């Protein structure tokens, strides 16, 4: 029954056929014309004019005029315009119909997209918020998730990197999974894409949604409530983002151009030592720890400031974007065609992002009973990932000022004998960026066709077929180089290709019936979807020239290939029933059953029901409070699921080369009994409107209970499931989570008069996640990042996930007595480490004795004293938008903020460690204040600088810089002026003279303008670690490893319509 996939060419052919059909129509109807104006009489252009129930549609021209054909006097014209109340009027015998549209004070009648259908906003029974094209247009976004931040309650967004095109974490309503993804499902014009938090390796910083052009988006619906999401069943636990792209409007062809020019500025400066200070520190270090001070450093007073690496590494970078779109059509066919080019250079050398895209959306209504549509979009992104953002910042801090950017002979500077830096000095990133190539090109085709057939009055059949093809290619080339000590002796090239295909075929029946005050809506759907992917990679070394980036140029003896492929499929049946009594009582029930390849026979199908109800109290006759224009109470409950990854019911054999042919080992313990992860949610909501809805409040409270959590069994190492050659732990259903959360959105129109309006959107939300159950009460799940000094975040029952684990510092030891009276580390026999200079000494960190083997303090500092020292999740987060308009000017200010989240300032920890002088690394200024134990007048040992919190120079067993402690945990609360945008629309009087221009707008915006925070690092919004070593199992959250920060961005943009 599954049709073969349609090729792109066939889709185009089909689109042409549709156009053909529409153009060929005969025309036997009379014309109606007129003008559309607002309350003040100003003409409105671009107003959509349609004939109710018929395909004809047009839109008003620059002078507000329109012309449309009607076939009968009882034809009803519908005028709709964003921000205005939709107006319907019967034509009668008029041939000229002029109308005045009222500003909409309420969007309640607005039609919004919901899963597998539409609904009037006023009749929504589930928690759902909308982000409009207008909102999106105000911020400078490389990719779409950036546009969402601060716009919607319940959506917690952190940008993992300020890198161009860099990845973003989107969390809707809390943490729903321990080791699975928490990213929502994206549905882009019917194409379902699961969000992805991390990918591995050299391309770890890239982002799966980077191909979408934010400017093509009409609106984004954020489905949060269980009833809204349950219709997506097993993929909806993390929420759903419904993304609808722009479509054409009937009427005069609208040509729009928009251009942006942006300057991104570099991050703020951290105080690190200059050359003179560094030399001083090197001298002091060797004085204490032994070793040779380079001759150049013997007298720091001879030195200058040296290289300022932050200055060298961070530059202001331009970005520009051009977009041209064509929209139009007639009452039979409308189209939207757009093309985009954007080019973003990174602040750090070696990073950049380019996108080319085009989109064609076509809708046709060749017959009364038939509608057809097609969406075609193609994009290509080119990313340069040479500067791995995980290192650029730390390099900026750690490169020593003695290393020049370039040597006198033009070669790249690196630690060498001439400048005295040793072989542990970080490698000059400017050199690496200019020498190596790490390019990723992705092409994506998203598209689909849909057909709608009216069978009888109220009964419609719709079917759509959507696909997503992706192709990616990457080249990672490292040439032969010698940069000081750092040497790469053999050139290597790694090329990878990836092909992925997704299709979704959906058949849907919908029935609407109005019987007096009863309105009933039924929907039933069958859906099948499948995807597959294939990777191919090759690697060779031994290139003799750096000019030819092709594997063929490498030494064939060194060739290696990697491959891999996989596929997935799911089949679903779903239905919905809506019952609406007089717009007063609204009840909705949905049910979906999904069958997935991810599960074995017994558990293949999962059922996800939901029910919701709303009571619009204001519609009741008894309710008569003039001030209250809207009061709606909502309740919903439903189940959503998560099916995890595929293949876990099997135990695949993994091949490996051996000297005598290929060997095989089981790669994973299978779990044939794997089940669906299920989330049951209760949601209580209220909508409240005052003063004709000039003040609107929406509030929700929810409880989400997730059971059968899908995760890799966190087995102890003795099970042999960790490491090379291991058999991976089975995927299991272990444990339960609970999220309790709330969200409040307040929209107000503060001032509105003919000249001036001021509107506000304020949203605030919070959630608390608690782990309810694991496979045992004592069980804990750790994410340990070996590359970050074994930084560990832990999940245990009764707490929010991913607590920071570390010791508590109680200052530095100030005297020998203090040491002798304090708990200290012990040797393996349990004997205290001796109090002397090579062991525990004045100036070492004093740790708090929290516990012991018996659960109470034992006078010993060891792993029993590890405790929770921070929580990466905020108590609440908010977005606050103020929009002003005055005559042709408009101004919008967006604030975003988060409160109560902790950040582990790993960067500060590493770069305050005076012992790292040994590694030819520069340090923060504060490291110079390391504790200096001295012998006082009375022979007592004390600190020369008792006020310091930087431990002494020592490699002793106290682990001053090895242990993670609360000293580095900082409050990550912040309030950011995310965006200020000022625009000006050129007056029509001016434009009228230009003829060609229908409208023009210039705008200036500043993004990431200022951040108010106590956090001492670059940027408190640190997100998740996405370096090359990260994976779902060990991704650090809320740890600042020197993340590529969000920096101020200034944009000038120009928009023109022709």
């Amino acid at each position, binding site marked *: 029954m599954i049709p073969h996939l349609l090729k792109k060419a066939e889709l185009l052919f089909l689109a042409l056929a549709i156009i053909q059909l529409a153009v060929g129509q005969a025309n036997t109807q009379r014309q109606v014309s007129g003008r559309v104006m607002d309350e003040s009489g100003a003409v409105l252009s671009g107003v959509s004019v349609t004939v109710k129930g018929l395909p004809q549609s047009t839109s008003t021209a620059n002078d507000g005029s329109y012309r449309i054909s009607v076939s009968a006097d009882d034809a009803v014209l519908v005028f709709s315009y964003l921000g205005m109340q939709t107006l319907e009027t019967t034509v009668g015998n008029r041939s000229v119909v002029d109308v005045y549209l009222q500003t909409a004070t309420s969007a309640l009648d607005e039609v919004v997209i919901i899963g597998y259908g539409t609904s009037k906003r006023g009749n929504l029974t589930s928690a759902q918020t909308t982000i409009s094209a207008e909102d999106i247009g105000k911020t400078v976004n490389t990719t779409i998730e950036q546009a969402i931040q601060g716009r919607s309650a319940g959506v917690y967004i952190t940008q993992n990197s300020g890198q161009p095109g860099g990845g973003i974490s989107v969390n809707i309503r809390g943490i729903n999974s321990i080791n699975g993804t928490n990213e929502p499902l994206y549905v882009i014009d019917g194409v379902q894409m699961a969000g992805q938090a991390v990918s591995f390796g050299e391309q770890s910083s890239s982002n799966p949604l980077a191909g979408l052009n934010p400017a093509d988006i009409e609106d984004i619906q954020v489905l949060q409530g269980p009833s809204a999401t349950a219709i997506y069943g097993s993929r909806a636990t993390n929420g759903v983002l419904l993304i609808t792209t722009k479509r054409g409007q009937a009427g005069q062809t609208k040509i729009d151009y928009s251009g942006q020019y942006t300057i991104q500025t570099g991050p703020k400066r951290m105080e690190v030592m200059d050359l003179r200070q560094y030399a001083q520190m090197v001298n002091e270090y060797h004085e204490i720890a032994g070793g040779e001070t380079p001759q150049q450093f013997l007298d720091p007073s001879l030195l200058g400031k040296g290289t300022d690496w932050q200055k060298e590494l961070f530059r202001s970078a331009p970005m520009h974007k051009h977009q041209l779109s064509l929209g139009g059509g007639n009452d039979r066919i409308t189209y939207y065609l757009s093309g985009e080019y954007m080019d973003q250079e990174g602040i750090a050398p070696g990073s950049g992002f380019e996108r080319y895209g085009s989109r064609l959306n076509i809708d046709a209504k060749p017959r009364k009973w038939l509608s057809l549509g097609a969406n075609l979009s193609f994009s290509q992104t080119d990313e340069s990932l040479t500067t791995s953002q995980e290192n650029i910042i730390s390099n900026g801090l750690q490169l020593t000022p003695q290393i020049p950017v370039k040597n006198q002979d033009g070669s790249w500077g690196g630690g060498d004998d001439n400048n005295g830096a040793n072989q542990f000095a970080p490698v000059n990133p400017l050199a690496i960026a200019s020498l190596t190539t790490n390019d990723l090109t992705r092409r994506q085709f998203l598209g689909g066709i849909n057909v709608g057939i009216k069978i009888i009055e109220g009964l419609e059949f719709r079917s759509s077929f959507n696909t997503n093809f992706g192709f990616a290619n990457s080249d990672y080339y490292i040439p032969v180089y010698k940069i000081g000590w750092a040497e790469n*002796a053999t050139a290597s090239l790694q090329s990878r290709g990836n092909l992925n295909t997704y299709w979704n075929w959906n058949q849907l029946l919908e029935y609407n019936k109005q019987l007096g005050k009863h309105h009933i809506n039924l929907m039933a759907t069958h859906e099948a979807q499948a995807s597959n992917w294939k990777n191919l990679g090759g690697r060779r070394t031994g290139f003799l020239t750096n000019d030819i980036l092709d594997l063929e140029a490498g030494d064939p003896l060194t060739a290696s290939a990697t491959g891999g492929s996989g596929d997935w499929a799911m089949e679903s049946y779903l239905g919905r029933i809506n019952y609406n009594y007089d717009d007063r009582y609204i009840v909705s029930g949905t049910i979906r059953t999904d069958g997935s390849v991810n599960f074995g026979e017994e558990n293949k199908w999962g059922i996800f029901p939901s029910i919701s109800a709303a009571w619009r109290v204001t519609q009741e006759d008894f309710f008569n409070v003039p001030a209250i224009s809207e009061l709606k109470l909502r309740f919903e409950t439903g189940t959503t699921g998560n099916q995890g990854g595929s293949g876990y019911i099997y*135990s695949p054999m993994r*091949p490996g080369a051996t000297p005598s042919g290929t060997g095989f080992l089981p790669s994973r313990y299978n779990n044939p009994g794997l089940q669906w992860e299920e989330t049951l949610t209760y949601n209580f909501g209220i909508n409240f409107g005052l003063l004709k809805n000039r003040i609107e409040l929406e509030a929700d409270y929810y409880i989400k209970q997730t059971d059968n959590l899908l995760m890799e069994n966190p087995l102890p190492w003795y099970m042999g499931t960790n490491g090379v050659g291991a058999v991976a732990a089975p995927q299991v259903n272990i444990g339960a989570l609970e999220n309790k959360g709330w969200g409040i959105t307040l929209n107000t129109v503060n001032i509105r008069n003919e000249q001036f309006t001021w509107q506000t959107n304020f949203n605030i939300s919070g959630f608390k996640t608690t782990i309810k159950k694991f496979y045992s009460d004592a069980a804990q799940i750790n994410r340990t990042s070996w590359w970050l000094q074994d930084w560990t975040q832990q999940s245990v029952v009764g707490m929010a996930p991913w607590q920071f684990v570390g010791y508590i510092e109680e200052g530095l030891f100030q005297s020998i007595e203090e040491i002798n009276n304090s708990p200290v580390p012990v040797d393996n026999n*349990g004997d205290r480490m001796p109090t002397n200079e090579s062991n525990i000494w004045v100036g070492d960190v004093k740790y708090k004795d929290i516990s012991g083997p018996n659960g109470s303090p034992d006078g010993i500092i060891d792993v029993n004293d590890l405790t929770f020292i921070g929580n990466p999740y905020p108590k609440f987060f908010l977005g606050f938008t103020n929009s002003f308009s005055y005559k042709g000017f408009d101004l919008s200010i967006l604030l975003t903020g988060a409160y109560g989240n902790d950040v582990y300032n790993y960067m500060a920890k590493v770069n305050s460690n005076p012992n790292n002088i040994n590694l030819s690394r520069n340090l923060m200024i504060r490291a110079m204040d390391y504790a200096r134990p001295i012998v006082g007048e009375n022979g007592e040992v004390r600190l020369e600088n008792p006020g310091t919190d930087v431990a002494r120079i020592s490699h002793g067993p106290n682990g001053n810089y090895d242990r993670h402690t609360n000293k580095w945990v900082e409050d990550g609360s912040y309030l950011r002026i995310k965006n200020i945008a000022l625009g000006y629309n050129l007056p029509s009087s001016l434009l009228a003279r230009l003829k060609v221009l229908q409208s023009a707008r210039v705008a200036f915006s500043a993004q990431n303008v200022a951040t108010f925070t106590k956090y001492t690092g670059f940027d408190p919004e640190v997100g998740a670690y996405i370096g090359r070593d990260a994976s779902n199992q060990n991704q650090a959250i809320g740890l600042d490893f020197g993340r590529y920060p969000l920096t101020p961005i200034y944009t000038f943009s120009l928009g023109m319509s022709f």
Partner: protein
Amino acid sequence: SCNKSFLEKPPTDSIVDASFYKTDDQVLAATALLYSQVWFDYNDKASYNLGDFRAGTAYSAYNDRGNVLFNTTGDTPENGTAWRSFFIVVGQANLAIQNIQKYAGDGVSPDIKRMAIAEARFMRALAYRFLVMNWGAVPIIENNLTLLADTTIQRNTPESVWRYITNEMRAAAEDLPETPLRPGRLSKWSAEGMLARFYLTRAGVVSGGSGSRDQTFLDSAKYYADRVIRMSGASLLTNYAELFLYPYDNNAESLFSLQWTFAPGAWGVQNSTPAYLAYSGDIANGDGWGGDKGATWWMISLYDGIVPTETGLAGRTLDQRLKATFMLPGAHYSEITQSIPGGKQELVFPFSGTDVNFLSIKKYVTGKAEDVGGQAASQNYGHDTYMQRLAEIYLIYAEAVLGNGTSTTDETAMEYFNKVHTRAGLPPREEPLTLDAILKERFIEFSMEGMAWYDLVSLHYHNPQKAYDILNAQDRERFFTEPDQFPNPTSWKFIKTPWVDPGTRNINANSGNFLLPIPTAELNQAPNLRKPPVDYFNK
């Protein structure tokens, strides 16, 4: 509706277990990686970090300091990788046994089935030998499947682990063929060689530190050593250096080696260790990160002919093992290509520095790709890692005969000892054999083969104080080696680096830090490992 197979999608890029193990070749393929990949994490860095750095035969001046300074903690990286790796061996061996028993059908000959299971038992027993010697009590796991949901398993006492692994190794010896089925595969003699090793150590295990080893086990060690020497067909290579001269895999002296293969781009089936040992990229393949590694002062002082002087040590040695294990300034290696400014030459180990330099590692360093027929790339080498070679069996025999005596002059023991001793270019030893002499011989013979530490653990079982005394007398700090002339030196002087704090030159080994602590992370995730160990055989 769709047909049912739409929702059945086994992996497209791999075969699943139930469809495997169907032919002799498949069963052999299923145990082939037990010879390499499962040991990878151990071999990578833990092999020399634990086996040599902790033992004091070699050191790293700036890295791996926890192990070098005998401060291996629960967080030391190699503690974790080694622990994980040995349990990977155990887990995969268990699974191989179970899957072969479950899935192998009529297409698999009984001989192959028996042999493959014996291979897995051998590997598992050997992994436990490493586990028990590094960590003491460890949990014996013979079936991981039953433990997937069970978190109560306890550790087993070292005595019972030793009993278990000798039983297992004896069973493996029963079922393994007299001659390897394919080059590098295990034979009966691989297992009997390990039995000789196991019994020799176990003789001390049961002594409880009393200083007196169990005579029955000593006799067993001698029995198996004697059999392997007489019946295995293995023989010593005539020239020690050839043991490590590419290609040397599966030579006449090897009883069991990890079977690595050069596999560009792959990770886990290749030998990565040379990357960290080679002293410089000049003799490596984009790797060569061992510039700060080298022989310790103590190690170099062991070689006959390197004698104490007023300023330190000096001399030259007849012992060819020195050149084959460590590089002295001016040493010439024709088998290794060295990049020099503007070209290349046969390696002449450079002389550098004024008060510190390193006697870099030679053993297992095979040079550039061009030196090994193109079969090398960064962290990717094909040459094998010896897990046991015949030389050890000779020395086991001698030590088993010596037993609890202070010395022995047993003719065969002397003869066997001298086979190893004279093969190195030295004149035969004429004095009676003592434990010190045998230990010294082992330290020199197996230096940088990850052996010395286990020799010390073996000693520690019956004479802990002697083990501490050896360790605590070692100088593990930096020194300077100066040839009398360069190039073509004829002798060398060794001087301790003056500015190194003398207090850091020695370690303090004691019962508190001798064995490795179970990795911290493991104790956290498996609190059951804190329970007292139980005897595996009296559960």
